[in-house]
């Protein structure tokens, strides 16, 4: 270990993404900042419309549609990806940074063999012969646990089950040994037993290949087991970020409390009723004033509708940041009383 701190693999700085629409400007991502270290796993948790997917896609320049307004910095290995042109980005995409998507049945082309699609991904970034790429593809399919990869390489996507398709997508993502893998809801479309297999696979690949992972999900349970750190997003912003243990055991933000409390548990006493978060997620066109969470927060004070809280590190734990206007002592007391 050197004494000089190594720069992180990825640093996202004050990222903003806005989409002008007929109804007004959608502020999908409203100033988020985070870092991912080499070989680390960051979990980004949020509900639909929290901006988590847009934030992840923007890292790879996948939201550069006409009219989208993007600002901030996405620094990967010292280079600001937002400043790169499409060609330069293309060389990074699928090569140094890869992405896997939620729905494995729509992410593969139905008319091409699975193997051919992975061969294409290999040859897009490596100058190798077809035969060599095919050999590599078979190796990759084996790595992600497809049985008999030498035969299955010539199957079409419909001959694969949902779990196998997601494995094939992961194989494709790994084709060029990326240093960063962005996984957007990688297990949401899968059954629980298959989900466990895919999560274990990602964990194993991270350990073996040393890549960093950003895993985007609505299911805090998925990241509870995998992530080193968790960022909770609400209405386009990160409202709390901490090491996984800390976030699950000493959460500070009332929204995080709500998320944890509203999920039924597999053990412990059965509750008479769950404690839902009241109301519904806000509009990103016209988000609430002040603290975006205040209309749904049971501890909101009148001035919380006016003051917009910043995401600030806690005085006694700089690795734990929270954007909440309640006094720290007050928050701790409220959480401890409720546990």
């Amino acid at each position, binding site marked *: 270990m050197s004494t000089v701190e190594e720069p992180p693999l990825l640093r996202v700085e004050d990222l903003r993404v806005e989409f002008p629409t007929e109804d007004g400007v959608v502020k999908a991502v409203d100033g988020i900042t985070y870092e991912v270290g080499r070989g680390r796993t960051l979990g980004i948790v949020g509900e639909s419309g929290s901006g988590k997917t847009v934030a992840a896609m923007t890292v790879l320049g996948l939201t550069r549609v006409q009219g989208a307004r993007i600002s901030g910095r996405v620094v990967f290995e010292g280079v600001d990806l937002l400043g790169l042109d499409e060609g330069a980005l293309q060389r990074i995409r699928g090569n140094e940074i890869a992405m896997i998507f939620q729905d494995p049945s729509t992410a593969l082309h139905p008319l091409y063999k699975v193997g051919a699609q992975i061969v294409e991904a290999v040859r897009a970034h490596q100058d190798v012969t077809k035969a060599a790429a095919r050999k590599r593809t078979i190796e990759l399919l084996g790595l992600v646990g497809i049985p008999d990869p030498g035969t299955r390489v010539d199957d079409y996507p419909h001959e694969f089950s949902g779990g196998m398709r997601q494995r094939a997508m992961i194989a494709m993502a790994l084709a060029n040994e990326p240093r960063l893998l962005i996984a957007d809801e990688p297990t949401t479309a899968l059954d629980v*037993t298959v989900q*466990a297999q895919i999560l274990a696979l990602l964990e194993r690949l991270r350990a073996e290949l040393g890549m960093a992972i950003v895993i985007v999900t609505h299911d805090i349970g998925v990241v509870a087991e995998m992530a080193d750190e968790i960022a909770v997003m609400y209405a386009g912003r990160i409202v709390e970020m901490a090491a996984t*243990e800390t976030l699950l055991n000493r959460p500070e933000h009332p929204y995080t409390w709500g998320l944890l409390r509203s999920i*039924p548990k*597999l053990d412990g006493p059965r509750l008479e009723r*769950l404690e*839902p*978060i009241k109301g519904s997620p806000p509009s990103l066109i016209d988000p609430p004033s002040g603290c975006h969470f205040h209309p749904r927060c049971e501890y909101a004070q009148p001035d919380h509708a006016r003051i917009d809280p910043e995401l600030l590190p806690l005085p006694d734990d700089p690795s734990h940041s929270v954007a909440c206007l309640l006094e720290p002592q007050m928050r701790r007391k409220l959480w401890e009383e409720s546990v």
Partner: protein
Amino acid sequence: MSATEPLMEVRDIEKHFPLTRGIVLARRAGAVKAVDGVSFDVLRGETLGIVGETGCGKSTTARLMVRLLEPTAGTVRFEGEDITRLRGGRLKAVRRELQMVFQDPYSSLNPRKTVGSIVAEPFAIHGLHTERAERREQVKGLMDRVGLNPEHYNRYPHEFSGGQRQRIGVARALALGPKLLIADEPVSALDVSIQAQVLNLLRELQRDMGLTLVLISHDLSVVRHMCDRVAVMYAGKIVELAENEALYSEPSHPYTRELLAAVPGARSDRRTITG
């Protein structure tokens, strides 16, 4: 009819969907055994959970129970009456007692009808509350009951959020005062913070209205929270049926154990969620 008699008895039901080859002269080339000999009782006032993974036959079972599908073999008895082969008026009468809430609140509501007319449709079908003002009052009462603002009577589904739409689906299912409500994945399309609202609503309704509830879900923690007894389905069969506590503390079938072990982050003996 005694109170201890089951509300519904399902015996050896099977549903096979034929697979055919050829377009003009279709020949039978086998069958998908979606439900392959399933038997269980639904007791009065209980919440019965049916869990399983995609393709295990749980939704087909639900549809057989309300006779949206006709079984290939076996019988379904409701309050002692065999409803498996009912037709016409008698089937329509039984349907009043058996209602269903569907998974996707976006596709299960007609986008071109107002909420008022969606909730009132069961009345129209069954010729109830034909007087306009009375029908409106009934609908408003139902909307209020499920936590919707009755003044939103004239709004369209797109003006509501996912959780509110699912409440509309529940109001429609309750319109005819059913005895048995079957909810097929009622919260899986909803955001986590909204799921708890809908689950609480179902529990309240069940308690206050004396409903019997069958909850179909792939989510083991939701089923644990809601249900008195749980049936685990695998490949068209029930592999285990047990009281809630027993199933979760001492699962006896290896498949149940595998299912429980696969749920990420939900047990507090691992690195986990507290609260």
